[in-house]
Each structure stands twice: as C-alpha cells, then as structure tokens.
C-alpha cells in the first residue's frame, strides 16, 4: 500500500495557519488611497463618494487613483487564476506607494488582505509587496472605528435599521463587529437583529448566475428576514450583497431597500438628507 504514497515526502503536510492576532492599528494618517471597487464604481458611486467625504471629515486627504479597476476577485473565485493574477498585479503596482488603502467593501478588502497571498503564492518577490499591501489595507468601517477613532454626533431622526454583513467581510475582516460598533456611536439609530443574520445572502459572485435557483432561494430568505426584522431599511458595507439584495427586493416589488453603510453614516453625521 505504501507505494501509493511515493511522492509524499516532498509534500510537507500543511498545518492550518496560526489564528490571526487582534490587529493593531496605526495612528491616523494624513493621506489615504480609496480603492473604490468595480461594483461601487458602476452601481453605487454615490456611496463611494460618501466614503471619501467621511474620510475627509476626519481631516484625511483622500487619493482616488484613476487607474484602479477591480481587485480580481471574480476571476479568482471562478478558478481563472492567470486572469485574476494579471488584474491583481495591476492593482498591486498601483497601490505600491506606502499609503494606507481604504476599501468600502469587506470582500475586496479581504481579497487584498487574505487572497493575494494565494494568488501570488508562487512569486516570492511579489509576496513581500503583497504582505505590505495586506498590512496597509483597511475596510472602511474598521478604518473609521479603529484608525480615525471617530467621535460622531448623530444629526438624523430616530430610526431602526438592520445590518447585513457579507460573509467574506465577516469571516475575513470582522466587519460585522466594526459596523455594529460604529452604528452604536449614533445616538438615534437602533440596530435590529434579523433571523439567520450570519447566513449568506446568496450572492457569491458568479455563484448567483451559475446556480441561480439556489442563490435565488437564499436571497429570498434573506430579504424576507430583513423585512420581518421591523427595520426601516438595511445597511451593508458590501456592494456585492447590496446589488443582490436590492435587485431581489426590486424584482419582488417590495418597497424595503438596503443601502451602503457609507451613505447611511454620511447622512447621519453630515445632516444632509439625499433624495
């Protein structure tokens, strides 16, 4: 039987990586780069702008490199490694200037912080730059909470909201905890729990078109539990989930909607109410 394992020796068996230690955060920087993400670029640009406004409000100069596009996640999760790597490399080169990178989407931030390591696993030289980028990458809510240490006055009317957190943001970036804490700073906002809150909304990038029936069943359940939470609206820090959830609600002809957390936060702290 052991001849089955003839090539076993060169393959050292993998051990799970050590549990990440709680992240230590730097002091508030003077400048950051905003990585807007392709979904926000095309579908929720206002939310991206609100993210910029929130950062500027904290006295930070925001750069938005016009050469940015996509983090590479769609190709990566579809198994097209070479295509993902090409796109990832373009972003890596672009962001290679030492500035903190703020991303208003947990899954894209997770791509930078977790998956670029796998994308460039076979390029030791690139990996150093990947680690550097990972160290500098912050999801927006995390950045506002722990780096800017925001102290907000809530200028909005009392409201109740539901918070949806994307799975990758939850499991790779702890975004749900950051967003909860941020929302907790708003005196007039009550966050309501919803049924199966930690369950996936069914988006999963190309999963939503490869397995539309299963994905559709998931988003139907998610939108139902969001509506039944009693909240006036849903907020989320992830463009993909937002596209999925709002698209489904519109198809169902529901009036309930979600919006990006950045827009919600900007409205509360600036007092500007957009139509």
């Amino acid at each position, binding site marked *: *039987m052991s001849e089955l394992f003839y090539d076993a020796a060169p393959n050292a068996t*993998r051990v799970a990586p050590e549990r990440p230690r709680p992240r230590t955060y730097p002091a508030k920087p003077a400048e950051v780069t905003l990585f807007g993400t392709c979904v926000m670029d095309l579908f929720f640009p206002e939310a991206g702008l609100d993210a910029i406004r929130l950062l500027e409000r904290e006295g930070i100069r925001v750069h938005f490199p016009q050469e940015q596009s996509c983090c590479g996640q769609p190709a990566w999760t579809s198994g097209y490694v070479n295509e993902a790597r090409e796109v990832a490399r373009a972003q890596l080169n672009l962001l290679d200037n030492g500035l903190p990178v703020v991303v208003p989407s947990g899954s894209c931030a997770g791509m930078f912080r977790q998956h670029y390591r796998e994308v460039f696993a076979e390029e030791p030289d690139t990996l150093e730059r990947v680690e550097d980028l990972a160290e500098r990458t912050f999801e927006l809510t995390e950045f506002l909470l722990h780096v800017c240490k925001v102290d907000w006055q809530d200028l909005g009317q009392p409201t109740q909201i539901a918070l949806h957190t994307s799975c990758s943001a939850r499991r790779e970036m702890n975004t749900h905890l950051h967003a909860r804490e941020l929302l907790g700073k708003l005196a007039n906002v009550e966050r309501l729990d919803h049924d199966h809150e930690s*369950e996936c909304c069914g988006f999963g990038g190309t*999963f939503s078109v490869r397995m539309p029936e299963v994905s559709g069943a*998931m988003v139907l359940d998610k939108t139902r539990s969001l509506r039944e939470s009693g909240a006036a609206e849903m907020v989320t820090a992830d463009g993909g989930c937002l596209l999925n959830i709002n698209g489904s609600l519109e198809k169902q002809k529901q009036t309930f909607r979600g919006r990006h957390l950045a827009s919600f936060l900007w409205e509360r702290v600036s007092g500007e109410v957009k139509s």
Partner: protein
Amino acid sequence: MSQRIPVKELTDSFRGRAVGALADDQLRTNFRVAMDSLMKKRADAFPDEEEREGLRELGNHIKARALSRVPDLLEQLETRLTANGVKVHWAETTEEANRIVHSIIEAKQGSQVVKGKSMVSEEMEMNDYLAERNIECLESDMGEYIVQLDGEKPSHIIMPAIHKNRFQVSRLFHDKLGVDETEDVNELIQIGRRTLRQKFLEADVGVSGVNFAIAETGTLLLVENEGNGRMSTTAPPVHIAVTGIEKVVENLRDVVPLLSLLTRSALGQPITTYVNMISGPRKADELDGPEEVHLVLLDNGRSGAFADAQLRQTLNCIRCGACMNHCPVYTRVGGHTYGEVYPGPIGKIITPHMVGLHKVPDHPSASSLCGACGEVCPVKIPIPEMLQRLRQENVKSPAEQPKVKDGGAKYSRKERAIWRFWASLNTSPVIYRLFLWGATRFGKLAPKNVGPWTENHSAPVPARRSLHDLAKAHLNQGDR
C-alpha cells in the same frame, strides 16, 4: 422559485436536482428545522471560544501529523492489528473492497449481514453488491434502516434520514412493515428495534465502519448512540470493519481531543452513548465477541488527494457533518441533490477525488464561498480554499494537465475568452474608463433580461456617473 430550466434535461445534474428539492416545501422545512437545531447544539457544546479554537487547532495538528506519516502509520496499524488477531485487507478500489468483503462472507457460507452505520460501505455500495450475490445486508442504524426501507440513500453523513420527519417515517413503517401509524417517536424507534433485535441474533456477519484506527495499539474505535454498533460488532461470529485509509491516527492520546471535537461538532454531545474500542476477536478465555475480526482499508481516490499538499488537507476530515449543518446551500437543497455518497461542503471537496470531476462537474461551483463550513470544521480544513482550488482544476484545458482526477470538466474556450477579455479590460485603465463611460451613459439601454441574473433580480442599471467620474470631480485633482 424559477422553474424555467428544463428539469428533464438536468435531472442528472446538481442544478436540476436542486430545482426539484427547492420546490419541495416539506423537504426544505425538514432540513431547516434540523440544521437550526444542530447548529444550536454545537454552539452550546462549545461555550468557551478560546477552548474551542484551541481544540480545533490541536485537532488540525494531530491530523496533519498523522497524514504526514500515513504510510508508516498504516504499516504499524497492520502489524499491531495482526498481532491482536485481526486480519487486515487492502483495497485500492471499491470493487476490490466489495470482493474482499464478499469472499469473507462466502468463506463462512454466510447469507445474512447486519451492518452498523458506515459511510465507507455506502461508498462501496456494499448493500447492492451483496444483494446481487444473494446476501441480505440489513442496516441497523435507525436512520440507515429508514432510508434502506424506502430504497433511498442517506441524505446526511451522520443523520441519514434527516430529510424525513416523524410523520413520513410513520407512514413508511405502516406501508413497509404493516404496523399501525403512530406519531410517537419512541414508539417508532421501538418498532425498528424489535425488527432489528432478531436480525442481530441471526446474522452471520456484522459490518461496521471505523472512526479512528489507532496505529500504536491496533485499536478500532467506533462511536454511536444506539447500541447497534456494539451489537453489529459483537453478536455475529464475524466482524468486518471497513474504513478509509485517512482514519489512522498515531496513538490513543491523539484520540481524546479528536473524539471530543467529533461528538461536540456533530450533535453537540460531550460524548456519544457508546464508544467501542475493538482490538481483536474473542480470546480463548472470553465468553463473547466475534470469532473473526477483519479490517478492510480502502483507498478509493484518497491517495490522489494525498499527493497534493494543498488538497491533502481534505483528508483531515473526521466526518462530523458540521460543515453540512452550517451550509446555507445544503440546508436548502438537502443531501440527495449532491447525487453522491458524501453531500455538503465535505462532499464537494472529497467526491471529486473519488469519482472524478467529470462525474461531479458542478460540485466545486455549487457554493457561494460564504465560509461557514471552514469556520466550524473541527480539524480546520480550509474548505472554501479547497473549493477554489477545485474550480481552478475544473477549468483547466487538457494541455494544462489538471491535477485532480478527470479535471478540466468545465473547460470552455468561450468562458476562457470572456475572462481573457475581462482581464484586459481591468488591466488597461484607459479602456476600463471608456467602458465605465459607456456603461454609465448608455446603461439604461441595457437589456432587461440578462440571463440567470434576472431570474431573481431586476435588471441592474448602472449609475449615471461612475465613481471614477464623481471622485475626479470631487477631488478636483486630475489623475493621481
């Protein structure tokens, strides 16, 4: 739920079976209720996060260490078992394993087999193989008994009949056993128990699985809650254990944390009602136990997974089922949708090694990569990472030599071309911005039906200005 895809054409595919399952409200309720309860049980069994995470880490290290030495450990296991009087057999394929089992039964002129729960025997389709040779093979685990009675396959690796509720079981018993219908679960169990008791006494051979095969002592450890495992392995004169080669662990000390992880992750139990430790046949001065004990060690594609350092982590699995209990896809489509022995996330990553990706081409893509499975896996198999890797192997062209059995099942020139185009768009800033410009100005002209997306969503309408545009205007600082 959309029923527009031609179900007939797709009944042999994951997607086609999923459509059927999603339309079955009873099935969906059964799974949702059961999975919710199992998730709660697991959470309650691990009240201390630090302890849970430490234990998972330990479990991962034990399995990784065992796997790195698996050829040696298997040899040691064979030596120790042989010294204990257990006959060890090796099978590379399920066909070989079935032949071995059959020949043992034939040598005893046996005609009745009683089986404790064993997923490896399901892998072998042992019941069918033996039935074709006029040997009755009866399942003695209550869940397995129920699915066998209904001519079905298990829908969950530790709760085979979880897709049925008590009313459905009551009707089944009424139809097949001629007993009165009853909604009392205890009464239903007593009905099954009475039938099985007699069979334990009559059986010529008992078959079981193995949870951990301990190399140092030559011990086969088997957990169960119904006592049927103990009956199957002790009452008949011959006991045949069948298991996969990845179940071997170094020593008894390693078993303690693994056992705790297994029972708590599976059913939230601190320990199972029965923990059987089998180290050999009846000795001369003993009054009971089988006269012969055999162990069949099955490969069936496991060595293929083993050969790849990344995919090897799949073999850490201790078969607790927590990944399926927490999977939003499994919860909605149930175990039968997977069409193979192992359903759920672990099924998606282990089945390709057993049957090849051509037979289960949709397995790697039937996941939103939400990561719930990896988060609860007691031995820390990075299941989403495995799925992503299998997707890579699945889209490779033959020239790229996929590294998984029958890889390249989803290779498509057209799709590759689309991703090539996507990559060039996203690596050429000028073209990308031109694309944004076009999409935002003419987005409203986009078709209202964009394939599968619009089955569940309204058509996505791009904003009137891209973030690139808005940011540029806002920051008023040109290209930076």
